[in-house]
């Protein structure tokens, strides 16, 4: 079949027009509705994860202050918090939520390539969440083996949820992977094949680049988790010994023999490390666009930003064993992985320099999304620097399994992506809802979250240096941990409760603004990228009205000398650009659209 350019398919393109309320809002095939559904399910799941963290923080800060937090519940809460936040919250929200909303709009397409499969994806994701949540209600409760699900611990009678809990966890992950694969095929093919006329790959906003490369990582990394989950299900349900070694439990040998727990670790981390970048790359992309728009300046080093995203994506597949330095691997093996790990810091650092240089001499508008974006630069630098410590074998060995590790990965893939999520939600809220949010409430939300996050995670680095181990129900008395460490733990818990409470501001702001917010004018930030140029706000089904847009330039024409305004939308032809005699934008006299 010959390829028909999309621009020529315009009139014939089959749109699935909804016929009823159910088809419009429930079983919708519109990428925007699916994005909101994906996002809502992910946020709900994230709130469960947040609640669990508060419960185990109570135990750590004020031991045995909550009745039902016994050792079993503590391990279950820690495990589920980890898995929920990494997979069901961040991955789903970035790819399923923002990927779905942004890709067709930023590519000038009417929808995803396969809208029906897109709808299947979100419903399959919901099923995976339901299976996961069901594990809280079965006998024995959810698995408490730690989010890494290392065998043989997962299957031992001493581990909570070793019977039904772990089975539901693995089945839920397998279903999630099916959902992600269906979604991911859509995102990748849409970016490749459904861009509008004139939109070359190198004209795409970095948001699309970040989500595109993260999608490819997800498509190729999640199979490793699937393979591991299937083999572990066989071990648990059918009694095979892929991973399960010979174990003596309560004096009696189990039925397993000779399996390799290390094999599981390799498979898990072959997925697990790219997973970090599945979360980070979309965040990198989104924050680049927010920074550029509110700095009224083109992103610094666009090409280098794209190359860095691609390079990080490639490198992320050859660093996985840096999570396994203490597994007893060959020293040369550790040397190899330490080297690749430190190499990945190069493109990552380039990105950080470019964000800072984008701000340099920019015409910065300190709107609420910009607060979060700049906050991200801080937290990401701090999280990244501690990564240099942990990437080195000799420094990692004493710090492994301490609170230093917890602090590192929460700064780098907890706090940082979440600050970007808030930046992105506030930035694109007018596009998604047609309303403006409450600026003051958003800024207060930022300060409480940003400072609160530091109050939680900075002291944790110190606890890690003291040697406080992670995953302990109570510290007890030791020779090397002073009693004051417990006071620090209590302080961290109080800060965590404050930060969690501060998120109420976010939800109040969203709900209040949806009802009472000021009506947003079209393109309220004066953004150059395509999604804001749609004829309706929020964009209607089909996005572009009669005709698809045509793109004439890249997505970062901000403060171009001689232009009418301090931005030129991507779909503005060259012929519209002013000649020397006409009025042009003067940053000292004229008001930018981004001033709100």
């Amino acid at each position, binding site marked *: *079949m010959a*390829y028909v*350019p*999309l*621009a020529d398919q315009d009139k014939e393109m089959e749109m699935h027009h909804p016929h009823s309320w159910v088809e419009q809002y429930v079983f919708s095939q519109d990428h925007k509705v699916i994005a909101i559904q994906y996002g809502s399910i992910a946020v709900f799941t994230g709130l469960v994860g947040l609640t669990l963290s508060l419960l185990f923080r109570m135990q750590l800060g004020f031991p045995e202050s909550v009745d039902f937090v016994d050792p079993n519940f503590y391990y279950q809460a820690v495990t589920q918090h980890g898995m929920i936040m990494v997979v069901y919250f961040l991955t789903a929200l970035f790819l399923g939520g923002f990927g779905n909303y942004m890709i067709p709009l930023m590519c000038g397409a009417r929808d995803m*390539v*396969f809208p029906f499969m897109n709808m299947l994806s979100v419903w399959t994701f919901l099923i995976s969440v339901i299976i996961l949540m069901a594990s809280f209600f079965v006998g024995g409760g959810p698995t408490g083996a730690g989010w890494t699900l290392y065998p043989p611990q997962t299957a031992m009678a001493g581990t909570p949820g070793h019977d039904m809990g772990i089975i539901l966890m693995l089945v839920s992950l397998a279903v999630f992977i099916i959902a992600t*694969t269906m979604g991911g*095929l859509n995102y*990748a*093919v849409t970016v*490749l*094949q*459904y*861009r*509008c*006329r*004139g*939109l*070359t*790959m*190198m*004209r795409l906003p970095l948001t699309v680049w970040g989500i595109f490369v993260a999608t490819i990582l997800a*498509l*190729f990394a999640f*199979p*490793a988790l699937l*393979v591991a989950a*299937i*083999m572990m299900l*066989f071990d648990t349900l*059918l*009694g*095979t*010994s*892929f991973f399960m070694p010979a174990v003596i439990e309560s004096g009696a040998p189990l*039925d397993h*023999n*000779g*399996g*390799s727990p290390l*094999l599981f670790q*390799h*498979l898990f981390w*072959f997925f697990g490390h790219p997973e970090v970048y599945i979360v980070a790359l979309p965040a990198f992309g989104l924050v680049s666009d927010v920074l550029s728009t509110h700095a009224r300046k*083109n992103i610094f080093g*666009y*090409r280098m930003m*794209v*190359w860095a995203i*691609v390079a990080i994506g490639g490198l992320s597949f050859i660093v996985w064993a840096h999570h396994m330095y203490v597994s007893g691997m060959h020293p040369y093996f550790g040397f190899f992985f330490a080297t690749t790990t430190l190499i990945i810091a190069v493109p990552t650092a380039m990105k950080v320099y470019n964000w800072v240089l984008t701000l340099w001499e920019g015409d910065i508008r300190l709107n609420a999304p910009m607060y979060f974006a700049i906050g991200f630069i801080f937290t990401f630098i701090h999280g990244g620097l501690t990564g240099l410590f942990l990437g080195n074998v000799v420094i990692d060995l004493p710090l492994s399994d301490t609170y230093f590790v917890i602090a590192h990965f929460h700064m780098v893939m907890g706090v940082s992506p979440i600050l970007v999520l808030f930046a992105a939600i506030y930035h694109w809220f007018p596009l998604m809802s047609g309303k403006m949010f409450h600026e003051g409430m958003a800024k207060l939300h930022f300060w409480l979250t940003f400072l609160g996050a530091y109050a939680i995670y900075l002291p944790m680095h110190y606890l890690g240096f003291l040697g406080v181990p992670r995953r302990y129900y109570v510290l007890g008395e030791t020779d090397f941990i002073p009693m004051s460490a417990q006071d620090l733990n209590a302080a961290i818990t109080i800060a965590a409760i404050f930060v969690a409470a501060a998120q109420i501001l976010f939800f109040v702001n969203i709900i209040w603004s949806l009802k009472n917010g000021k009506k947003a004018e079209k393109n309220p930030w004066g953004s150059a990228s395509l999604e804001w140029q749609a004829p309706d706000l929020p964009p209607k089904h089909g996005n572009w009205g009669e005709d698809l847009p*045509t*793109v*004439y*330039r*890249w997505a*970062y*024409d901000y403060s171009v000398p001689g232009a009418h305004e301090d931005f030129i939308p991507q779909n503005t*032809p*060259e012929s519209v650009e002013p000649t020397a005699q006409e009025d042009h934008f003067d940053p000292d006299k004229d008001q930018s659209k981004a001033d709100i």
Partner: protein
Amino acid sequence: MSVFKHLAVKPWERKGVIGGLKPEGAFDSPAERVALNFFLVIASVVFSLFTVSYFIRMELPDWQPLSEPAQLWFNTALLILSSVFFQWAHNLSNSEQPRNLMTAFVGGGVFAILFIAGQLMTWESLQAGGYYLTSNPANAFYYLMTGVHAAHLLGGLWVWSKCSIRMLSGAEAKDVRLSIELCTLYWHFLLVVWLVLFAVLANT
């Protein structure tokens, strides 16, 4: 080379519509074919990881090699026939007035079903011979890898059945040409995967 050239352009210097009607960098190919190619890579990753796990697990002392049933050679012949029929259907679908298209396409699927039935028979003969799933990791890998391969074939058969129904209800060759082409590609891929798996499983 062109990928590097694309990545090296300076987008801030180039204005205007680049690439004419077609967005520059898009594959000259329908979206379905691009998606299937992506899926083939994903499936390759899955099978590669199973294979790597197989070789790592094989090194451990409790491994007892499994002598694969001779019937696998017969099953392999069935799968090759299945692929040949699909290729025949694909070739026919390019002609204006295809004859025997239905025979070729349906025949391909039928041979695939026979292959799966044959695989199930090898499972039964292994069970009868006392080679249970849990008695040795070599057995477990045999059941697991043949099972995952058969599951991929079943997925293909679902698409095949949908396309067959369309053909039975009178769809013209040009309407199903892409479906037939993609089925053929998928079947060839699964044949190659099977040949590799067979070699791997036999290598104990």
